[in-house]
């Protein structure tokens, strides 16, 4: 076979693979949308669950929002600070290498293990109970390494010339980082943080063991209240519903969760574009 016709065949095979990876999303979206859109209504979005598989999902939506916001509040600053250290200060020695190694280990930690740890350490050992706080902290353990990784990457891609220019103007290292490096790395950092948020929104295994049952009828009243979340609600209803009503609600909640995730992704994209425009690239 001559190279040109082989090229054609190869390209066709390539397109088959592309089609396969492209088809997954629409299939799942249509499946969820088709089954879930019927139940979506103002009523469903603003009322609380009744009798297990009836009523709405307001507390679950708000619970997810609370969990993820708090988790970001803990995880993002810590993650960005760690990334700054690793990218700007860390000398190339054993300590730094092991810090990096542990960060990577945490990134690869199965969520069920983080959940077990959250349960043992936060819920029982620190007596935080099954609560908003315990759930949010456990989630932030999951989010932390992703934020670190993305932020470090973003900080490292800031051209060395910016730092040299700032230092030559008499700025200290920290002034340079705050005023030049971080703003320039902002699009990457934001994307990293929002990526972590996206992961946290859909996480089930961790909140299962630390945050609450998923059926809560109220938005959390304090940091120590058990907190419902959409993934947990979906899991409960998908696996335990008695009736079609319940299964439909699982689909509906999945749709809401997907829309929330898309919302986070789109705002990540917009924030990124806004910063890129401001940076003039």
């Amino acid at each position, binding site marked *: 076979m001559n190279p040109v016709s082989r090229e054609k065949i190869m390209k066709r095979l390539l397109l088959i693979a592309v089609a396969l990876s492209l088809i997954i999303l629409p299939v799942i979206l249509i499946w969820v949308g088709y089954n879930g859109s019927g139940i979506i209504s103002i009523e469903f979005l603003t009322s609380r669950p009744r009798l297990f598989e009836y009523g709405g999902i307001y507390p679950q939506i708000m619970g997810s929002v609370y969990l993820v916001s708090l988790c970001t509040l803990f995880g993002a600053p810590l993650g960005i600070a760690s990334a700054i250290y690793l990218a700007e200060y860390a*000398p190339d020695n054993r300590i730094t290498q092991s810090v990096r190694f542990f960060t990577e280990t945490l990134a690869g930690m199965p969520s069920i293990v983080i959940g077990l740890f959250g349960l043992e350490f936060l819920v029982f050992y620190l007596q935080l109970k099954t609560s908003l706080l315990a759930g949010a902290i456990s989630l932030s353990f999951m989010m932390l390494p992703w934020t670190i990784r993305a932020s470090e990457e973003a900080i490292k891609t800031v*051209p060395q*010339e*910016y*730092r*040299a*220019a*700032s*230092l*030559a*103007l*008499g*700025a*200290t290292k920290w*002034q340079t980082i705050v*005023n*030049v490096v971080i*703003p*320039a790395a902002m699009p990457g950092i934001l994307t990293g943080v929002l990526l972590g948020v996206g992961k946290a929104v859909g996480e089930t295994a961790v909140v299962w063991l630390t945050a609450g049952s998923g059926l809560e009828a109220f938005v959390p009243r304090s940091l120590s209240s058990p907190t419902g979340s959409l993934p947990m609600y979906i899991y409960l209803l998908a696996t335990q519903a008695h009736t079609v009503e319940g299964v439909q609600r699982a689909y509906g909640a999945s749709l809401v969760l997907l829309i929330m995730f898309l919302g986070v992704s789109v705002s990540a994209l917009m924030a990124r574009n806004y910063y890129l425009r*401001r*940076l*003039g*690239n």
Partner: protein
Amino acid sequence: MSYQINEELLRFRPKMAQDKVIFNDFNLWYGEKHALIDINIAVKSNIVTAFMGPSGCGKSSLLRGINRMNDIIPVARSTGEVLIDGKNIMGSGINVYDLRKRVGMVFQRPNPFPMSIYDNIAYAPLLHDVAEEEELDKIVENSLRGAALWDEVKDRLDDSAFSLSGGQQQRLCIARALSINPDIILMDEPCSALDPIATIKIEALMRELKEKYTVVLVTHNLQQAARVSEMTAFMYIGEIIEFGATRDIFENPREELTEKYITGRFG
């Protein structure tokens, strides 16, 4: 090979000028590598001094000795003295940040910050709290005028610095260096990434700048050294081979090595 040396430069005599920066037995190592060896020269004030030589000869390192930018390289270490206005900047008790405020620097490639034109200039004055908010506009305007850029950008100060052409960006970087009101301006091959027209503009600017500032220029472009500098140092593998009035270096070099370099037989 002949060099066109500026009329005005021909009138220059080193004895006419005061010493601004003096290197005394200055040595620099990068790890094991001895990058600068026993440097003893005096850079005169209010002229352009050029450091030239083949790449890797240490001319940029020498330049960076003046504002201690070598400090940010972890493996760099140095001995000897560098005096600015008679004060040793290598000594203890020297605040390196204050030093760098007195010494502006322009880099090889234009490196404006990813901010607006205005913010690029306002960056350092704001950082050092030298300016009241009201004065800031004045500083920006003066710096941009000083870098002959004001007329081109005065209507678009809020635009991103990256919207400027390469030559304009480099002049913006010069303006940024002027914003801290330095005595000395270091230029590290400022035209190497620019086209000939932009290069001519920057060179004209250097001739203006030396009225108020001491300008030190690193260049590998012999023509450029001949066109703009009063004094030239020729360096080779970490050592100063010859230092003197540009005219002397180009017309009657004392050293054979210098002559070979000037006549293009190596480098």
